[in-house]
């Protein structure tokens, strides 16, 4: 109880018990694995040593990977902004047929798992992709016009998948913008460009900063794109994977520590440099009527531009759907596959071994999500309504997994839960079914917790007090009042967690067991076996599952409480 006292009796007792339990879980699953990684990186064979650190800082390829992670991330921020911001401004400004649908479609990639996006890109613009071969044939070249490999490829894929953050944040920012300020600028004699530069962009600054931070952290943690397109070019995440696979465990630990430190340092630095700058909306404001284009030719041009931009952005995903109908061996050197059949989908239901990863992912994501929903509901209650000490710590630990790349989490779990030391809180989970649900649970805790916390903040604490004053205890109040009221937000967070668990790849590739391999790993295996159709079909199935979750969820969660990210 803090110095000021608090609610009397039962409630505070429950909060204390709850707080202790939640802190224990967070300390054990979120903090402890990182501590184990750090301490193990400093010891070898029981003796303290900095040998692996010396190796890291004296090996050229290691330092290059570190530098690559940083500059690729900065580059991704710049390129994503370059696509996302103009796109949002365009859809905000102009009215043309199909605008609503296109504006929604442009946000679609946010729902797709990173691996699927990367694979789709491979089918489109990879060495033997549809676009590459088309151009080759068109220009009569002997070689493909480009080889999509290394840093440029990674940057391109990042820009292509991460522009969505800038797009969505900018749109949200524009929606909040008081059009009165724009009219004021115009009345003061500012032209359109001056208004954009001196009013709109500064007011969008918080939104743009949020998007930049998100893209930077996502890019820092990105594994799929560098893994598939990197070739010899390594970033830290793929470097960790390579070290782990080649048995250089000590080095993998050091790389993990470095990646975690760099991520946290950048997060801290960026947050700090932005400070607490906030522009409160100056009131309700008038929504500006969208500009309806007057001349016919201009209208046609704008419409074509809108459709064109969205088509280009969605082309990889369309290619994925196309490839999913290609039977094995039917697409070798042709520009477009010669035959199409629904065989790849039918095979899923014929061959239990093919369906198995789908069932695995469904099962593991369900388990993790169920745990997330219960845990994050209680944690959010404590953070928002609690009157006990340690709430600040709980809320910090709830976001920590977001700041740490999935690779770091996976190495932490792999290191911590590979030995049986019950007294040290370590059990063998590696090699069992349970390791992936645990990993998904940790990865998605920030997402669900933020959703639940936001919902708790939205409803008046007097509702709970009213329940207590009417004689209800803590349990009844939670069940009958708090839970129903936060359910929309909690369900939205749970849906996102479920979807992200379904497509999880980064941590899975370091932790999966063959028996419980998830969809993402199977997609990769099919590609390795050059069965592109089967891989693409799995990618489509995964995307459809996600769409189904949101379709059903959208109906269940009234009022469109589904967060857009």
């Amino acid at each position: 109880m803090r110095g000021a006292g608090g609610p009397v009796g039962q409630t505070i007792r429950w909060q204390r018990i709850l707080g202790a339990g939640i802190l224990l879980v967070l300390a054990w699953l979120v903090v402890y694995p990182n501590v184990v990684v750090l301490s193990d990186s400093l010891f070898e064979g029981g003796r303290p040593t900095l040998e692996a650190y010396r190796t890291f800082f004296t090996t050229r390829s290691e330092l290059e990977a570190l530098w690559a992670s940083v500059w690729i991330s900065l580059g991704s921020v710049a390129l994503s902004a370059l696509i996302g911001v103009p796109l949002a401004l365009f859809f905000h400004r102009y009215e043309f047929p199909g605008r609503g649908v296109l504006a929604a479609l442009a946000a679609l990639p946010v729902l797709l798992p990173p691996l699927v996006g990367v694979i789709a890109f491979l089918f489109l613009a990879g060495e033997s992709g549809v676009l590459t071969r088309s151009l080759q044939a068109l220009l009569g070249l002997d070689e493909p016009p480009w080889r999509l490999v290394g840093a440029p490829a990674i940057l391109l894929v990042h820009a292509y998948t991460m522009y969505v953050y800038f797009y969505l944040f900018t749109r949200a920012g524009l929606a909040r913008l008081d059009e009165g300020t724009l009219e004021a600028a115009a009345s003061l004699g500012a032209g359109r460009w001056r208004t954009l530069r001196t009013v709109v962009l500064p007011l969008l600054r918080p939104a743009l900063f949020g998007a930049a931070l998100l893209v930077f952290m996502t890019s820092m943690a990105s594994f799929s794109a560098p893994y598939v397109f990197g070739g010899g070019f390594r970033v830290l995440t793929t470097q960790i994977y390579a070290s782990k696979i080649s048995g250089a465990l000590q080095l993998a630990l050091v790389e993990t520590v470095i990646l975690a430190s760099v991520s946290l340092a950048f997060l801290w630095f960026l947050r700090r440099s932005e400070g607490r700058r906030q522009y409160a909306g100056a009131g309700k404001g008038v929504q500006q009527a969208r500009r309806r284009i007057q001349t016919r030719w201009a209208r046609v041009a704008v419409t074509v531009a809108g459709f064109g931009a969205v088509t280009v952005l969605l082309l990889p995903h369309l290619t994925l759907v196309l490839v999913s109908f290609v039977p094995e061996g039917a697409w070798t050197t042709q520009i477009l596959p010669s035959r199409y059949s629904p065989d790849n989908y039918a095979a899923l239901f014929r061959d239990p071994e093919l369906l198995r990863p789908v069932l695995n992912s469904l099962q593991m994501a369900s388990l993790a999500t169920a745990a997330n929903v219960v845990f994050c509901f209680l944690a959010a209650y404590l953070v928002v309504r609690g009157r006990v000490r340690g709430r600040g710590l709980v809320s910090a630990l709830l976001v920590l997994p977001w700041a740490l790349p999935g690779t770091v989490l996976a190495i932490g779990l792999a290191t911590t839960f590979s030995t049986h030391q019950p007294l040290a809180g370590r059990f063998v989970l590696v090699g069992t079914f349970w390791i992936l649900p645990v990993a998904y649970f940790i990865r998605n805790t920030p997402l669900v917790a933020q959703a639940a916390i936001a919902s708790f903040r939205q409803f008046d604490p007097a509702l709970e007090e009213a329940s207590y004053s009417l004689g209800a205890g803590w349990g009844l109040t939670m069940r009958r009042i708090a839970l129903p009221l936060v359910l929309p937000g909690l369900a939205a967070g749970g849906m996102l967690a479920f979807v992200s668990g379904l497509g999880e790849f980064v941590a899975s590739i370091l932790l999966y067991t063959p028996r419980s391999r998830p969809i993402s790993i199977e997609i990769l295996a099919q590609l390795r076996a050059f069965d592109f159709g089967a891989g693409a079909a799995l990618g489509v199935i995964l995307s459809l599952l996600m769409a189904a979750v949101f379709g059903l969820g959208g109906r269940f969660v009234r009022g469109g409480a589904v967060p857009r990210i």
Partner: protein
Amino acid sequence: MSLELREVTKRFDDVVAVRELALEVPAGEFLTLLGPSGCGKTTALRLIAGFESPDAGSVVFDGRDVTRDSPQRRGFGMVFQNYALFPHLDVGENVSYGLRARRASAAEIADRVAASLRRVNLEGYGARAVQALSGGQQQRVALARALAIEPPLLLLDEPLSNLDAALREQTRRELRDLVKGLGITAVFVTHDQEEAFALSDRIAVLETGRLRQIGPPEELYRRPADPFVATFVGRANLVPATLSESRPRRVDFGGEGSWAADADDDTPSGPVLALLRPEDLELTGAGAGLPGVVRDRRFAGATTSFVLRMGGSDGPRDLEVIAEDRARVGDAVTVRPREGGTIRVFPMPAGAGR
């Protein structure tokens, strides 16, 4: 059943919200905690309800110390400022919530819900969604919900402040009739002095966490304990004056004439502050009194109020007067206290510089 606060103190970090508050509310009384925002009245109510626990002192109800009891154990009915109706439950479910929590039988619940709704004139509204109701109806549902559990004590946290003016006055009357009809003890919180007067048997005036005065409305108005209460309760002119040594004590304003004074025994003679309510003053053409000039005149139907600019040794000062008079802005007038009354005086506050 009576409520007692014994020297209750509540701090929030460095701020003392309630300071050594001592109160007794006898059974069946309607007590109002009145004060400006930030005076600690809501904290005091929450201490009674059990949503806050005091740093010192105790809350005693019906002779039993309930300081450590949770709100649900206390079972005091509470009506919240924004009503705190459960938005996901309908009217009937809201009203029956407390009964279900007490595991009342289905038949009893049905009876009591119907009776509660009838009491607040919302018969047949049980299946309505609470959001579909008007503000006044929501307020009555909140009241019905609190009364359904037949609480021994009813706590009301500014429940009328979200209603529009016309509705507020009507609801005020209904609320008082309902509470008095049930014979229930009630503690009501408001910053609105008029509301406090209309509802209360007694009023406790709080300022920065301290109890300044407690008593029936008329006593607060006629015999306020200090200048704060005098100005917070009703319109007040506080005018420097001189208090005589002689008994019975009299007060004069430096001009002709003196008036009977109501001073505490320990008020020293000499310079004092005299409380002159606007309606206690009258305008005269000439004779004993103080000269002033009409600065503003506001006609309000039954009465007319004037603002006079008075000269004085310590600079000009405004005086508010309610009088039947035809004086116009700019007219020179003479003002004096009406005959027959006594004038409440306070010691000149330290540092007033006079």
